Structures are given as structure tokens and as C-alpha cells.
């Protein structure tokens, strides 16, 4: 009785996820539009000479950053989704449902379209332009989150709040459409490409910044595990347990904004990961205890996006599929399953 029964299950699951993660990382480096033998990929990674110099370039300058970007985005979005679901006491909350990534998109659109496409992330970008895009995404997502948080004080009903979130998302989208309308063809083009979601847009030089912002966000999220568990009891119980509700909520808002904004800025708005992965993690783990749920969600997110990215690059020579063509195919069935079975699933009740 001293140890919760799922702790050994959690250990096994985390082990399995790490094995999967390593396997998927390897697969992401191995597969691509150019066929490179696995032994050559290994040699390149170990810093040895390879047969062709171009292979070295492909693996280190294209596949490796793409793999790391997919891994980081998955972890970031999944954890952001989990934080939102706990903070809003609603299992159907998520960065894309609540329009937070649309907010980030608006910020990016403002920066990109105002500069007429010269700041497109797909081209090599100056550091200032790049910071501007991230700042735009962050401010955009925080504004939407703040708006929803404001409405959450007026609207107590969680379903109503979700609808408010969706409405805010629509309004933001329409502003983006207007911006597109008044923008140059070049700007619209680079924005549209960005909007389809793409892990290959992150270059090797940008990667450390991306990794840093996601790393900071995830670290703060891990520090919030204890108050997150208390929040499962609701605000008033949590306050009685000594949790500073205002501070915790503000931190959750900032972390979610940071994680969603950095992912959206670098890789475009990626749907369904934030919404679906926490559910996959809970179903696999059988608990809403954040001590194990948060690490498992993080790993599941990374595994899921690596898998999605692998599917995207599988067509090989005919090109890369947009990531947002894959994530809903994986995510939507999970959400439908969860909704249909909500009476049977413990954490819903």
C-alpha cells in the first residue's frame, strides 16, 4: 500500500518510451529523400569520414536539426497541453483548441507580413529578424492566453470556456486573413508555407535558441509538479494546501505561452499534439498524478512527433508531406476514443 500500484508500470513505460525514442531518432536520421546507408549515417555521427561529402551535409545540416526540432516540438506541445488541461480543469483543452497557437501565428504573421517575407524562416534569417519572430509568437500566444484566462473568471462553465477559446481563435484567424489580404505575394507565400507546419525549417544555427526556450519551459513545468497535483482538487482545496494560486496560474500561463510560442515560431502551428498526447499518456499510465504523468507526456510527445515526421519524409523522392496533414490523422481518433469512452475513463470523473 505504501507504493502506488502504477509506479512499476510507470518505470516500465518510461523505459519503453526511451527505447522507442532512440529507435525513432535513428530512423529519422536514416530515412529521407536521399538514400544513405545506415553505416554511413553512423560514421558521420561519430565524426568519421564518409564516402560522399554531400551525405555529411545532409545528415548534419538537414536531418539532425529536423529530428531535434521534431523531438523538442513534440515534448513542448504535449507538456503545454497537459498544463492547460490541468489548469483549466478540462481534459479537452489544448494549445490549438484554445487558439493559443493561432495567437502565436498572428504574432508571426504580423512580423513576417510587415517585413514582406524577407524574414521567412525557410530562408537563412538574421538573428534580429529571428528574435522578432519569436517575440511576436510569444506576445501573440500570451495575449490569447490572457484573454482566455480573463474570460475564465467570468465564465465558470468549462465547456463555455472552451467555446470562448475557439471563438477567440476564429477572431485571431480572421485578423491573419486580413493581414494576408493586404500583404505582398512573397509574404503570403512564406507565411503559407510556414503555416503548414514543418520541422525542416529549423537550421543548425537556430537550433540552440529553440532548444534553450523549450528547455527553460520544460524545466519550469517540472518545478510545478507539486502545485499541479494540488490543482486537481480545484482552486479552493489547492489554496488550503498552501498553494499560491495566482502565482501558480501566472507561471502556468507563461510556461504554456513560451512552449507553444517557440514551437509555433520555429515549426509552424502544429495541431493535435498538445490535445491528444496527454490523453495517450494518461491512458498508458493509468494515473493523473503529475509525478509520472508529466515525464511520460513529455516522452510520448517526442515519440509522437518523431513518428509523424518519419511518416512525412517517407514519400522520399517525391518530397516532404506537411506535418499538419499527419497529426490530425493520429490525434483525432484518440480524442474521439476518449470522448466516447469518457464514462469508463477514470480521470474524466
Amino acid at each position, binding site marked *: 500500500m505504501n507504493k502506488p500500484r502504477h509506479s512499476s508500470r510507470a518505470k516500465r513505460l518510461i523505459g519503453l518510451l526511451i527505447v522507442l525514442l532512440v529507435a525513432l531518432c535513428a530512423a529519422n536520421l536514416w530515412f529521407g529523400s536521399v538514400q544513405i546507408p545506415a553505416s554511413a549515417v553512423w560514421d558521420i555521427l561519430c565524426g568519421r569520414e564518409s564516402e560522399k561529402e554531400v551525405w555529411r551535409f545532409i545528415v548534419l545540416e538537414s536531418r539532425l536539426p529536423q529530428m531535434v526540432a521534431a523531438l523538442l516540438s513534440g515534448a513542448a506541445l504535449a507538456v503545454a497541453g497537459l498544463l492547460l488541461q490541468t489548469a483549466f480543469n478540462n481534459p479537452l483543452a489544448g494549445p490549438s483548441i484554445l487558439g493559443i497557437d493561432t495567437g502565436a501565428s498572428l504574432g508571426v504573421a504580423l512580423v513576417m507580413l510587415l517585413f514582406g517575407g524577407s524574414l521567412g524562416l525557410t530562408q537563412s534569417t538574421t538573428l534580429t529578424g529571428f528574435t522578432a519572430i519569436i517575440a511576436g509568437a510569444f506576445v501573440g500566444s500570451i495575449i490569447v492566453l490572457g484573454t482566455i484566462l480573463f474570460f475564465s473568471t467570468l465564465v465558470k462553465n468549462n465547456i463555455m470556456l472552451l467555446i470562448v477559446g475557439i471563438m477567440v481563435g476564429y477572431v485571431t484567424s480572421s485578423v491573419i486573413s486580413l493581414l494576408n489580404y493586404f500583404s505582398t505575394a512573397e509574404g503570403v507565400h512564406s507565411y503559407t508555407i510556414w503555416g503548414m507546419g514543418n520541422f525542416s525549417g529549423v537550421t543548425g544555427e537556430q537550433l540552440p535558441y529553440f532548444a534553450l526556450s523549450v528547455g527553460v519551459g520544460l524545466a519550469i513545468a517540472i518545478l510545478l509538479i507539486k502545485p499541479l497535483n494540488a490543482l486537481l482538487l480545484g482552486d479552493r482545496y489547492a489554496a488550503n494546501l498552501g498553494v499560491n494560486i495566482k502565482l501558480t496560474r501566472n507561471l502556468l500561463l507563461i510556461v504554456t505561452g513560451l512552449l507553444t510560442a517557440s514551437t509555433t515560431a520555429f515549426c509552424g502551428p502544429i495541431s493535435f499534439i498538445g490535445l491528444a498526447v496527454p490523453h495517450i499518456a494518461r491512458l498508458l499510465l493509468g494515473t*493523473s498524478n503529475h509525478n509520472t504523468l508529466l515525464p511520460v507526456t513529455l516522452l510520448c510527445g517526442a515519440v509522437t512527433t518523431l513518428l509523424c515526421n518519419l511518416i512525412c519524409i517517407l514519400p522520399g523522392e517525391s518530397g516532404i508531406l506537411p506535418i499538419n496533414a499527419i497529426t490530425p490523422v493520429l490525434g483525432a481518433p484518440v480524442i474521439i476514443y476518449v470522448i466516447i469512452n469518457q464514462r469508463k475513463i477514470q480521470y474524466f470523473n
Partner: protein
Amino acid sequence: MESTTAILSAQALSIGYRTGHHGVKQIHHNLSFALHRGELTCLLGANGSGKSTLLRTLAAAQPPLAGTITLEGRDLSTLSERELSRLIGVVLTDKTQTGGLTVYEMVSLGRQPHTGFFGRLDRHDRQVVDEAIEAAGIAHKADTYMAQLSDGEKQKAMIAKVLAQECPLVILDEPTAFLDAVSRIETMTLLHRIATTQHKAILLSTHDIEQALVLADRLWLLRKGQGLCSGVTEDLILNGDLDTLFDRRDICFDRAHGSYYPSVQWEKEIVVEASDETLLHWTVNALNRNSYGCRIAPDEDTSSLPRLTVSDAHTLTLRTAAGVQPFTTFDALIEGLKKQD
């Protein structure tokens, strides 16, 4: 009451809400009272009498408008969140999202005021959690998901959580609402036992007057505009304080049975004789419900009124001007009375 020490006391307390900049909605003023260790105190009052506001104020969830609350010799408003979380534990009616936690995990959350930054439980914490689960009587459900518990078991788990918090003062907001009769009695008995054995001060609000009168060591009666009346149950009942708890003409308090009933509006009168107290009580109950006022052992002349004699539950005799009618059940008696009209 020398044996019990006051853990919480209030002097000249005003409670209510601040609305806008200068607006104040005062619900009660000049309240003074004390809570003692080892006692179960039940707060009774009609809806809207300010029960929840009083409990929230005492739990430091909202500030008083005036006056002071002293907890363990210190002013409540000077205590930090962390100190408060170790002194006052609450059980609320709020809906929680703990369905995906086991009872053990949920009860462990009660240790948060005592654990470190990551909330890890050490050996002592786990022992306290085990004891809390045991004391609340749900040890057999420790590894069950919260979602799989009945309402009564959920309430016991919440009580275990508050025990794990190890607070000397426990405040519960309507802990028996939504529970069936058996769970209501179990919950109240459990709370009374905890107050006595663990020497805690327990304050709860309830609409379950029947249980409160049986188990409360002390009653707090809250009436709109009249403030708080506190005392031991029997003193309050026999002084007539419960008669006016609900300020309604059509609700009366039965001092003998400790329950409220709707006052009878009778059109007809009947003389009743019964062989014992129980028979008399239920006979009057049946007649009152059917708009008969009952005369029991009247002094004046009642020969013009019908007369009902109940020797046992199956021997009921009705004497009227028309003659004598025997009945074997109350069902038949009520039928017979209706035919007369």
C-alpha cells in the same frame, strides 16, 4: 469548560463582502464565539443565513469586515499561507478532477503543507497517510481510483485527506449533502469520533439537523439579522432556541423528537386515545396529514367530536355520531375518514 482549550476565538466579528470601491455587503456583525479542541460543532441555519460566508471567513479564504479572529493565540490575518495550511484543513463541496488518482494518492495530497519542493513523501509522511486512511475507514479502498468510489466513500476519502494534513482545526462545508441516509450517519459518527480521539476542533455546516442534534457537542445557530447563538445542544433545545431557527410561521420544532415539521392547518377536530407514546405519535402524524387537529386527553367536554381509540397498530376504533367503526390498518382508517367527508 476547563478541560477544552479554545483553539479559535472571534471578537466583534463582522462578516460579508466588499463590493466595488467602498461598498460593503455586511451579512453579520458583532459575532463573538470560540471553538474548542475535542469538540464537534455543527453550524445550523437556513439557506442564505450566511453559513458559507462564516466558514470561508474562519478558514481565512476571505477577510472579515471588522473584528479579529484568533487562532492558537495568533491573529488569523497575520498567518502565512503555509502556516494556515498546517492549522486549518477544509472539506468543501467543490467538484474535483481527482478521478484518475487512487485514494492513496489523493490522500497524499493532504501532506503537501509538510512536504518539500517536489512533494516527495518520506517514511513519516507515508505513515501519516496510512493512519489517515485507516481512521477514515477506507483502508480497503486505498488502491482504488477516486472515480470508482461511491459518494459516501469519496467523502470519507476527503476526510482522510484532511486528516493527513494534520491540522488541529477542521472546517467542513456541508459534508453530508448528496449522501444517502447510511453514509450521512457514518460520516457524522466518523467526524465525532475523530474530534474526540484525535483531539481536533471540527466545525461543519449542515442541513441534517437530526444527526446534528444527536452528535454535535455544540451547536451554532445562525439566523439572518440575529447573529450567532452558540451552546450545548440540550440547553439550546430546552431554552427554545431551535424553535425560531427558521423564521417561518408554517415550520414548527418538535422539542420531544428534535425535528421540524410543517405546522398543521386543520379544518376538523378529533379526540385521540392511544395505548403508548409511539402509537400516539404516528396516529397524530396520520391525522395531521389528513387535515385533522388532534385533541389528546382534553379537559373540556368533547362529546360532540369524533373519537379515535388505538389499542395497537391493528386495532383502531372510530366513534362518531353515526356509530362505531373498527379498522385494522391506518390505510383503512384514512379511507373511512375520507368517506365521512
